[in-house]
Structures are given as C-alpha cells and as structure tokens.
C-alpha cells in the first residue's frame, strides 16, 4: 500500500473542513461552527462577486450601455428594482409593491396555461390507460387508475371523509404511503454514495491511496 500525500495545500484545507463538518454528527462544536461560518461567508462572498460581475454588470449595465437604443427599456425594471430597495426606508415600503406586482402578475400569467398543460392535461393523458384483462393489465394499468382516483378523493377538502367516501379516501392514503416509501427507498442508496464520495476524496485526493 502506498501513500502519496497531496502537496496541494488547498486539498488539506478541504480535508480539514470535511472532517469539521462530520464532527457535527457527534455534537455542535466550535469546529463545525467555524466550517459553517466559512461556508456561509465564502458562499456569500462568491455570490456577491458573481452578482456584481455577471448579473449587475453582465446582464444589466453592459447591455444597457453598449446597445442603448434597443435595450433602453431595461431602465424600467431597474427603476422597479430600486423601488424594491426602498424597503430599507420604512416610509417608502409601499413602493416595493410595484416591483412585486409586476413579477407576480407576469409570473402567474406565465404559469397559468403551463400549469394546465403540464399539471392537468398531461397527467390526465398519462393516466388514461386502457384496462386490459390480463395479470399485467391488472397489476399496472388498473392499479394506477384506482390509485390515482382514490388519491384524488383523499384530497377532497369540502366533504367529510366518512362512509364509502371515507373508505375510498383511506385507500388513497395507502397508495400515497406506498408511493412515499418507494421514493424513500429509491433515494437511500444515492445518499449513501455521497458519503462514499467524501471518503474517497480524503483517501484518494489527500492521502493518495492510488489504487482505490
């Protein structure tokens, strides 16, 4: 077995922080607090720099100044953005509503037909399965149709879940639970591999066990 310690100081910094984060599993401690502060701070610094260079300059200032005649209208959202910032001064808080109104109104209008297309029509289409009189047809198509219908019944809010209605809603909740279980189980392995990834980082990149 050969060691080949990394000569890159950054790698050792990363190893230190990796172990610091894992110390949180034992209990909250200064090492974790340190790592937490650093990731929050560095992440924020990164975001601020990228925000300034890529967003403020790249997406707003440069297009506005280099191609003013066709992009002059960017001033309008900029004014709305500034109105948003007036929130810092309590007296002018209400000005920020214009920006929010624009964003939310347009966002909702944007979403409305798409919600109907993807959230309703497409889901309905996918569930309109033919009932086949075979084991496969029963196990798949029929179960899906029954599951969707009973699941929808569970989500009825203005009718009491009693009697036959309640029983169907009860079937619905069983379907939901099995579905959640499947999603849960499906994710477990993927999550474990994340940990393996970090262990490999320490062993391979830092300590240099080459043959892993």
């Amino acid at each position: 077995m050969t060691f080949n310690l990394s000569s890159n100081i950054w790698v050792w910094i990363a190893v230190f922080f990796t172990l610091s984060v894992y110390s949180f599993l034992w209990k909250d401690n200064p090492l974790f607090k340190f790592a937490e502060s650093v990731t929050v701070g560095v992440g924020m610094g990164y975001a601020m720099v990228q925000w300034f260079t890529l967003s403020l300059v790249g997406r707003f200032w440069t297009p506005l100044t280099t191609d003013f005649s066709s992009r002059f209208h960017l001033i309008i959202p900029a004014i709305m953005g500034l109105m948003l910032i007036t929130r810092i001064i309590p007296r002018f808080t209400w000005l920020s509503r214009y920006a929010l109104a624009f964003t939310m109104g347009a966002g909702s209008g944007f979403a409305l037909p798409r919600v109907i297309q993807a959230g309703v029509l497409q889901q309905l289409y996918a569930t309109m399965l033919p009932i086949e009189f075979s084991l496969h047809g029963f196990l798949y198509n029929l179960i899906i149709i029954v599951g969707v219908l009973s699941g929808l019944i569970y989500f009825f809010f203005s009718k009491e879940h009693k009697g036959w209605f309640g029983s169907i809603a009860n079937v619905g909740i069983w379907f939901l639970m099995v579905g959640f279980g499947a999603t849960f189980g499906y994710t477990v392995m993927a999550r474990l591999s994340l940990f393996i990834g970090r262990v490999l980082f320490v062993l391979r990149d830092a300590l240099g066990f080459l043959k892993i």
Partner: protein
Amino acid sequence: MRRLWLVFVVLLILSLLQAEDTFPPKPLTPNLIDIPGDGGNNVYISWKHFATVPGIRYDILRYTTGKDYDKHRSTDDAKFEVITPLQVKTQLPVLEDELYNDLSPYDFYIYTQPQENDVPKVIAVKLTDENRDSILALGAQKIVRVELEVPPREILDKIPNIFGEGAYYLILPDTLIANVYRPKSVPENVWEFYWSDLPYEGDLSLELKPSQKELDFVDKGVQLLLPGEIEQYYLFKYGKRIISLVTDSVRYTVKYDNISFLQRSSEENPIYPDSHYVYKVCLVQTWKPIKKVFMDSDTVGITPKNEPPIIPNALTALYDSTNSELVLRLSYSGFLNNIKTLFDNVSYSIYKAPEGMETMPVEEDSIEEESTPIGELLFKVSSTWKAVKLNDIKPNDNIFLVMTDTIGQTTKSDFIPFNPVTAESLVLPPNIIARDKGNDEGDQAILVWDYPELAIKYSVENPTPNLRTENVQERKLYWIPAQDGSLIEISDTIGLEEIPYEAQEVVNIIYPIPLDKLNVRVVYEMWSNEDDKALYGEFRFNDKRKVDKEYTGEMEFENVKPGTYTLIGRVVKKSGGLLKNPESKVEIEISVNKISTTKFDKPDYYYAIYRGTDPEDLTTFKYVGKADGTDREFTDDFGDWKDAKGEFYYIVQVIGPSYWVARTVLLGPVHIKGNWFNFSKLPIFFAVFIFVAVALFFVYHIKKGREFYVRPIAGIVHIDEALGRATEMGRPIMYVAGLGWIGDIATICSMTILGKVASKAAEYQNRLIVPCYDPIVMIVAQETVKNAFMDAGRPDLYSEEDIYYIAAAQFAYAAAVSGLMIREQTAANFFMGRFYAESLILAETGASTGAIQVAGTDDMTQLPFFLTSCDYTLIGEELYAASAYLSKDPMQKGSLKAQDYLKALEMLLLIIGVAAATSGIYWFTNIFKAVGTE
C-alpha cells in the same frame, strides 16, 4: 523591525518559487496555415503538445497595438492580445510499479537526429553484434525504462526532458493475451457455405485462438517498434504507446498531440486579407496552489490572401448517351471537403467550348470583373449546389466550369471528361408543395410531399437463450478479421504459410437453437408528414392487435408457435381512424421456424433543398438542407423572422446513390408570416377557459356568504399545540420557508401560514425566527410577520434581525439553519414551502433536538422525509388548502370549494378517458396529449 523581517522572508520565499522553474518547455513548433480558396480571413494555427507537459490551458496570442491582455506579463508582451484560450486535457500523473516498463535487462539504445524547424527525431534500436559500434559511435545511450503513463511532477523534474518525434510502441509478448479464446460475432453470409442447414439466420459467435504465426511473433519477446515496422493487428493487440523513453540522464518524451485552432475573422479579432499578423502560443500552468507559470512559444507570422476559387476536386461528369443528359457532381473530397465552408465561392458557371477547340487555352487566373471565357454559357448556379443536370449534351462536347468568388476572381477548370453511365430512374417527390409553416412566429417555411408509409423489420428470438456450441477444430478453419470478414479452410491448395498474419483459428461456433415457442419482435418506422395526421402504428399478428401508443417504435409478440404468419401493419390517424392510402398498409409474411432477423428496406436517395428569391436567376438559390429518402417533410428555419420577409421559391433535387440527379419544378412563391394563434394549443386554450370559468363561478358564488364544511387538516390543527408547548418551555419558534422564490406557489402558501404562526406567536409573546434563502421571500416574510405582530397589538416584539437572509447556497443554508436550531434550542419548527435535498438534514436535526415539527411541501420526492421525521406533514395540495383554510377571506374558502369541483371534473374526464382508451377510441385521449412547451 520584526515586521520588516517578516516581509523580507515572504519576499525571499516568493522569489525562490519564481526562480526554480525551467520546466515545462515553451510550446513547440507553432505553425500557421493560410486556408486556401477563402476570402483571406481565416488562419489555422497548430503546435505540438507533449504528454508530459503539465498545463491547464494554452492561450493563442496575436500581435496588436491595443489593450494589455494579462497583468501577469511583462511590458514587452503588452502588445500581444489573447485571441482565445484553449483548455488542454493533461494526463493525470500515475505512478507505475509494473515491472514490464523496466528495460534495463534488454539492450535498447537511443539517440536523436536534428530536424529542421521541428523537434529532433528520436531513434531507438536494439543493439546487436553487427550494429554495436556504429550505434555507440552516434552517442547512443542505454534505455533503462519506458513510461506508458505520465509520471508525477517530482519524477519529471529529476532529469532533463527532451521532446522529440517517434511514435514508439512497447511490444509485450503476453502469452496470456495470445492464448485466450476470443468470442467473435460473425456475419451470417460467411457461414451459409458451411452450414446452410442451421436452424438460425443471423450473426454467429465464434471462439478463436491465435494462429501459429502469431504465436511465433509472441515468442520474439520485448520489442520497441514504430507503427510501420509491425503489422497493425499485432500493434493493437500487443503494443502500448510509449510516452517517454528514459535513460540514466535524460527523458525523451515522444508522445504528443497536435493542438490546433482555426481562427475565423470576427468583430473582436478581425482578419483582413493581405495584412500581416504575428502569432504566438502561451502555455499557462499552475504549480503549487497559487502560482502561475507562463511559457511563450516562438512567434510566427502570416499574411492571409484572398485566393481565387478552387475547382471541386471530386468534380465528375456522369453522361447518359441515350438521353443526352449530363450530371455534374460539384463536390470536394478529402481535406478540401473539411474546409469548404471557409471558401468564399459565389457561383458556378458551366460552359460549352466552341467546336473545334481541343484544349483549354492556358490563362492566368484573372481578377478582372468580366473576363468572359470563350464558349457558350449553359448554366449558372450558386456555389452551394451539390450537382446539376444538363440536357442536350453531345458526347463530344467540351464542357468546363468557371467559378467566381466574392471579389470577382475566377478559376476555370479543364474540359471535364465524361463518365458514361446509364441514368438512374429517380422518382420526384409526389404531391410536393412549399408553404408557410403555421403556428410559428413567422420564421419558417415547410415543404411536404409523398404519402405516409410504414417500414417494418422483425426478428424471431428465443425468449430465453438456448445456445449450442459446436467444436469444429478438426476442419482447420481460419477466420480473417478483414473488413467484411472471411473464412479460409486449410486444404491441399492452401497451406498454413499462405494464411494472413491476423488469421485466427476457429475452435467453436456458437449459435442459438429455437425453442418450441418463440418471440417475434417487430420494429417499425412511420414515414409521414404533418398533413397526413398520421399518429400510431397498429399491428395485427397471430390474432393479436397491438397499438404503439408510447412511440417506442417496437413491439413484441410473445410465445408464438413455429409456423408462418402474416403481419399487417397500418397507420392510425389522429382522429382514430385508419389511413386509406395503399402505402399505409403493409402485409408481410413472417416465418417463425428459425431464429432470424430482417433489415429495413430504406430508400438510398436523398433530397437536396434549395431556396431562392428570384425564379429567373438560379444563382439566388442557396442550399438550405437535405432530407432523407424516408422523410416526408422539410422545415426551412430562417432563424430570424426578419430574414423571412418577401417571396421565396424552392427547388428540390433528388440525388441517387450513383449521384444521378432529378430536379423538381420551381415551388412557390411562399410568403412567410407570423401567426396570431397557435392552433396546436387549442385544447389547452379550451382547458384554461373551462377550468378558469368553473373556478371563478365558485369563488364568487361562495363570496355571497354561504358557509360550508372544510375537513380538518392535521398539520394546521396542531399549530396551536406546537406554539403552546414552545411558550411553556420558553424557547423560540423557527419557521423555514424553503428554497423557493416568491413565484413558487408553495412559497406563497407558506407566507399565508407564516402569517397565522406569527399572530399566534405574538399572542403567546414568543420569539419567531425566520431564516431566509431568497431576498424577495425575506422581505415578504418580514412584512407578513410585522403585520401579524401589529394586528396582535405587539409591534414591540417584532425584530427584523430574526427574519434575515442567512445564506446564498443550498447546503450552506442547510448547515446554518441546522446550527441555528441547535444553538437557539427551538421548540417548534415549521418547514413550509419548496424544499430539495436539504429537507432531511433540517428535519432530522430538528427531530434530534426534540422540537415539535410541522412540515408541508408539494414535492413528491421530499415528502417521505418530512413524513418520517416530522410530527405532522401537509401533503401536496393540503399545503395549498391550509393556506386557504387559514385565510379569513370568504373568496379564499370559495377557492377550496372550486378546487374540489375541478377535482371531480378531473375524475370524470379520467373515467371517460379510461373507457375510451379501453375501447380503442383515440381521439378523446389525444385531446389531452400535451403539445410541446417552448
């Protein structure tokens, strides 16, 4: 004083770091090429990148009087500007400990020969008694090892590095590789001669062993060889490409890649013909964490020229004497084909020389505008044409080509020799029309033609593998892995010596034998255009009917008894009916007696499509794309609607396998316009209309003040309990609104619930912490909480420091919120909104502190984690309902009722849809079929 020392030490260390590097070398042999036949505005630069050179990128620089390009460089360089950075993939350093790269036991020697304007040539030879003196006289040194991988930096730095030419391979006589039985798939045609009675048609598996020749080669032992000195087959099988050859004192690196870059003239870095440019290449590499090393190559200069056009080097003339028709194929091949997009050609003019002129007069390529060649102009087209057909050409006519470029330079071809052929009978696409494409923004035209057609292939398969292995060693068969593969049987006429070096002896053949019940797999393609409204393939086979609604393009019929069956394939229309035209129905016989496969019978011609603006002038017709013989439509996308203004005409050429050509009449004119309604979205339009109408009715109907029952929602009922307990314990409440932005429905609902939680918290006089991820959500949360506290009469308890922006990255947020939960010892945690993978981290940390937790989200993938780790969870729509439920606004409650009625509508549609699908009525379900979102 002490500080001064510190500064000194730091500077000293820095200067030491600077001084040590002599490695890597500067980029070697930069070379510039002016692209021939272009407008003088393309430059091609290439250089050698050796495998052991560590680098992160190369910068290509051009001399210019302008900006500084990199502040790390000295002032001398300031006038070079980076044209482009090129990332290089350096090979990862690997430590080798295998013994085979140790060459000290063998007498391999190495020396170099200088080459002009290039790296030296590296020559490795095995010392023999004959060549010993002459080789040693050249100053050759003994090779102690070869490196097949790039060694780490520490090893590279130990001895000087020389970079040279020499594609050496280490040949390793691995008897293990030689003797292994290799399974090999063999095309059926080879075998028909030998076993025509196999219960099987298709590829067979062979198990092979090496021939005696190969075993003899292996016996030769370790060799160092160049590719030309060894058969390709052995090279790939036993050879390993050498990166470096190492002697005691020097490393000769011989493996390199030619890195190249084509610089085209652009706005930032223009290239003008007849201007002089100086280039160099800079290697940028990182050494130690924070230091950068730059290595510049020698400079090279170039003056790009606008050359006259280059005559197509694959220019051929196909002549059919019966019809006196001539097809000129106007295409490039080889290198010119790769760079033809850079040419600035404008047009082809085809001339017929006057009778009696036997040779083309020699003439300098002229730049004059109108240097009319002697002869009769037969045809003139734009230079994008692939081929042209000329009529009424006599066998002894002399035809030649004149090409023109953007600045009017012309090039004349020689007389084109005729290649006599028989014209292919090509069928022009029937029913072809060109028109504006509907439902678009006004930037597309469409050509449609022909009738819908089904193409079918099938295979007969064993449901489970049932293989038989037959030993054929006594027949002395050799398999030759040439392009198509062939077999040689050793007999009296063919001796062992005559078989090729790569032949392998056949030991076993393996083939499947059929079971008594087989599977038939049908694969099909549907060729149709949008006018046909063709939709599904429908198949009948062995009394079964299958429709491929999922567009898998294939279906399987299982457990078919041996026999002969008829497969009927038909095209189903969008409306559910069957198409009536004869091509849309296919009947084929399938013999289920042996395992077999068939292939598609696809047309071997294709369509070339040209678009022009002036029907009289063919030079305005430019090639816009091609369509396969199986295609039934072609969409001509202009890219920008502004380019699609005016009238357009189309010409379609059918180009056959031997390049014969047929041309359609002029199609058009086409006027392209933008549409004001997308009819493919009509079902969505109606759905929006109906759903919104139902919703509005109930929302406003309920407004009139009718109370109705709303079932209790567990998570909401227990908000009071959670807050009460937190107050009892004297510990704060945490409300997490997730990662969503304010436009997420879940976030908006979360804000409503936050209002409720905040007013309860104000009532109990408890502290409420809201860590935020999105700035806008933060301000809305601040406003919501402030209002709730004010309404409860406790504005003094509101603290803006508790509702703040905590982190800008997902897991930084998760870490910070987890830390907060533990440090603040929150007694009640709410997770409402949109969550991703961090959901479980938050919920589990919260659970470990013993807090009461209520969660709610609409994301299926995160719900299970909240369900297991939280006390109460609002599932999907419950989150939305909770927000309406908590609101005092009667219209909000009305929306709950509306939601239930719409749900009933959904269920009704679903039941009808299932019934329709079961009875084979497609039109109903197809209404719901989603059209693509943009």
